[in-house]
């Protein structure tokens, strides 16, 4: 028994009943308990012996005992006419009993602060370390500066997977925490084992250019003990590749459209050949009404036809022509030389026009039935209008030329900037990349793992409706454990995200919540007291729910050593060095 244990902080309150869920502690005059403190009580149970009850403080109270009127406070504290004792108590939510004899703790028993080994038991850390495997990953600190652990069996797919982070925007917590968590994953190979080996992370930068400096030291960073307590070196991400959309202007294809950072950022886009091969046409039809109008059905058909008809153009990388393989029996596989007047597809615009030749022939004849599969003329018309409508928004992302596909194998972390794209183009990029990850991992076993960090998940997997991206995301949520794809989704309101995706996230976190949002059933995992506090959480504070611990844990995480804005980048090198 440690010294701290020797000094009880108070006694189990006996003027009201204790239960197997909750009890109150009446505090000694010179002791205190604050929210989230962990305590333990020993109860002697007849025929069983000693039972240890562990709990977490969910509320603290103070009052004048024996006063009945509110004005009595003045009589006691100001006038000094009424005798009354000040009583201070704390409400404790029971989180664990050892051995598992579910009894209410005895009233009047001393209550001790749970420290060191007892604290780890209260947080089930001993269970995360059974069978010779240490699966307790430090992922933050408690209010009193002690470690908080997550059972990574419930993240890496062993027993569960995925993480869902909710919280209002602007408090800059969701993405920051997700990145911190990823850093924890890679910093502890002794705990992560094969899960962290060759772990690939795909991060979408959706707001500002915040995530384009993960490899740069932060000049505002002051070395904190917290990082060392967590067993990590406070250094920026060592292996990151950055991708921004290629500029549309001719001649500057290789130049990324990111403004804040140009050095070390690669430009991305797809060639018409890649667009056709990867079936990206789907991701031009990601809006709600597209399903209702059967446009996705036409898109499906068109995608298949494109894959059948597309032929590479000799001497023009990534460009294609559309030819009916059966009609031209002499035509061999491989590159072809365009006929005179044949439409060479070098951009999305060209592709749309080429599709139009089949679906809306210029001579006014009926659409080619092998392309339209006899869909109503109105639907085909709507399909073509949508394709033309997509051109100004997405057209810049498809261009013949050198392949600028995003290469995720280059570095451990791949940051894809989409913040400056139109919403339709954002959905296109996200859909294309997630489908690519999905396709790559399908049938290849869990390892190496791939984590996808996606903010504003409600845009891609909204609660209502269907879209090809949502379809893929739900599949990842449901089968990601076996596919080895781990989704870290962030959103302002969990209530606006598909419920399958939320239900499959083993680790649930929440930063500050809007008061109305906090009352929703999506946050049923919080205690009533935690919900009330969720409105007040400060940046850098999160509430965590994990399957291993039956009560939510409040944790904080330290300031990042990497820059989150261009102004924060610490210039390490002299730019004129070597001149």
């Amino acid at each position, binding site marked *: 028994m440690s010294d701290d244990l020797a000094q009880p902080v108070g006694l189990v309150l006996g003027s009201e009943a204790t239960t197997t869920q909750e009890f109150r502690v009446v505090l000694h005059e010179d002791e205190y308990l604050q929210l989230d403190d962990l305590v333990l009580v020993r109860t002697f149970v007849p025929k069983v012996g000693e039972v240890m009850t562990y709990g977490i403080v969910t509320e603290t109270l103070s009052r004048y005992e024996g006063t009945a009127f509110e004005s009595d406070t003045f009589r*006691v504290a*100001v*006038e*000094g*006419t*009424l*005798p*009354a004792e000040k009583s201070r108590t704390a409400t404790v939510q029971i989180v664990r009993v050892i051995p598992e004899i579910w009894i209410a703790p005895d009233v009047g028993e001393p209550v001790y602060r749970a420290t060191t080994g007892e604290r780890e038991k209260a947080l089930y850390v001993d269970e995360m370390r059974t069978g010779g495997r240490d699966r307790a990953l430090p992922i933050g600190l408690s209010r009193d500066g002690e470690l908080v652990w997550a059972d990574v069996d419930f993240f890496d797919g062993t027993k569960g997977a995925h993480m869902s982070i909710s919280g209002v925007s602007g408090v800059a917590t969701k993405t920051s925490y997700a990145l911190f968590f990823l850093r924890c994953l890679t910093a502890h190979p002794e705990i992560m084992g094969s899960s962290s080996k060759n772990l690939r992370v795909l991060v979408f930068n959706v707001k500002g250019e915040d995530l384009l400096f993960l490899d740069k030291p932060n000049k505002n960073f002051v070395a904190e003990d917290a990082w060392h307590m967590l067993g990590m070196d406070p250094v920026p991400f060592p292996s990151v590749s950055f991708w921004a959309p290629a500029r549309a202007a001719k001649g500057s294809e290789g130049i990324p459209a990111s403004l804040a950072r140009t050095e070390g950022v690669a430009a991305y886009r797809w060639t018409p050949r890649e667009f056709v091969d990867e079936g990206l046409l789907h991701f031009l039809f990601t809006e709600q009404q597209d399903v209702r109008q059967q446009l996705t059905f036409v898109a499906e058909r068109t995608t298949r036809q494109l894959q059948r008809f597309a032929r590479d153009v000799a001497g023009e990388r990534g460009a294609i022509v559309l030819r009916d393989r059966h009609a031209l029996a002499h035509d061999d596989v491989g590159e072809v030389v365009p006929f005179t007047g044949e439409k060479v597809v070098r951009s999305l615009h060209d592709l749309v026009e080429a599709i139009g030749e089949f679906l809306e022939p210029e001579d006014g004849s009926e659409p080619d039935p092998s392309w339209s599969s006899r869909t109503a003329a109105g639907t085909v018309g709507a399909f073509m209008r949508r394709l033309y409508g997509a051109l100004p928004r997405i057209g810049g992302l498809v261009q013949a030329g050198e392949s600028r596909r995003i290469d995720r194998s280059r570095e451990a972390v791949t940051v894809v900037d989409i913040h400056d794209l139109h919403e339709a183009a954002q959905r296109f990029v996200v859909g294309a990349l997630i489908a690519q990850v999905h396709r790559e991992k399908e049938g290849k076993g869990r390892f190496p793992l791939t984590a996808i960090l996606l903010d504003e998940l409600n845009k891609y997997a909204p609660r209502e409706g269907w879209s090809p991206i949502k379809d893929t995301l739900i599949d990842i949520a449901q089968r990601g454990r076996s596919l080895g794809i781990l989704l870290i989704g962030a959103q302002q309101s969990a209530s606006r995200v598909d419920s399958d995706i939320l239900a499959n996230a083993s680790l649930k976190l929440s930063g500050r919540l809007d008061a109305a949002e906090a009352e929703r059933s999506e946050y049923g995992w919080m205690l009533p007291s935690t919900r009330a506090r969720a409105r007040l959480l400060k940046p850098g504070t999160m509430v965590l729910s994990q399957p291993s611990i039956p009560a939510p844990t409040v944790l904080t995480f330290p300031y990042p050593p990497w820059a989150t804005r261009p102004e924060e980048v610490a210039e390490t090198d002299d730019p004129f060095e070597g001149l």
Partner: protein
Amino acid sequence: MRIAVEAWSPDYGSALELGEPDEVSVEKVDTACELQQWTPITPRAGAPPQLPIAFVDGTRRIDARVFVMNGEGGATPGVAGTVGVGAVVCELNGNGRRAKCAEVEITRLLAVGDGLSQGLSAGPGLEYQGLPVPGQSTDRLVDEVHNSMRAREAKVAELLADRDHLVFADGPLAVVDPGPRSIIGFIKAHARRYLPPDEEAVLTRLDCGQRTPIFAFGELRARYSWYVRLCAPEPDMHGWFGIARCEVPAALPLERVMEMADLSGRLLPGFASRPFWDSRAPQNLVPIAGLERRLRHLMGERELVYRMIRSAAKRVGEGDVDV
């Protein structure tokens, strides 16, 4: 015609039960100690007292009526009673004004007739001490429990007065003569008239914090006394509303008594209770009410105590315990 409603709850009777005007106290009253010609006195201003002020009170409860049988068919009546006494000490100087309970003591008594000394152990904290009482009258048994409480109150009052507290004791200074100690008997209800009609008329003219001149009475135990009003008079109440009587032993010099009387006028309105707060407002002072609540709480749940006495009595009958 006007009708005034008694401010005290009907459960407590009335603060004023004086009887006929000619039924003046049998005591010989000297009204000329301080002033020949009576008029309301506004206390002289002064600093708050440096001494702590103590309010002493007691409460008693009959827990059970018992019969002690000696095996020869005779049954001697007895009562098991609980007596609680204590004080509230108020420090009025300085910023940290606080009222604290002090010298709180709970005593369990088994008063048995025929002069029998018989105790009863009913459990932890429920040790009833034998209190022999002559005769077999139940009223007498209850009175003896009450007297025991009064005696204990007096002891606490004397103890605190010896520690230089200004002590307000509950009720008249009837049990013991405290000698020249600073103990003020505080009388909430008026069952006797002490003053002739002319002087009594002054009493009804008192304003909040004002007092009557000092008068003296008591052949056996000589005392000085005065009336003081604890709150502003209310137009629709009778003239005795909010009036309390104080008495001190005549062994004190008159000069000191006048000082104490002025102090009572200055201090007591600050301790007076309000009608919504206490059903015997304003005379049941806030510290006293707080103390009584504490004492009643410490006496334990009546039902539980009763049951424990019953089972203890049963064990005595079975010879399981020594008594």
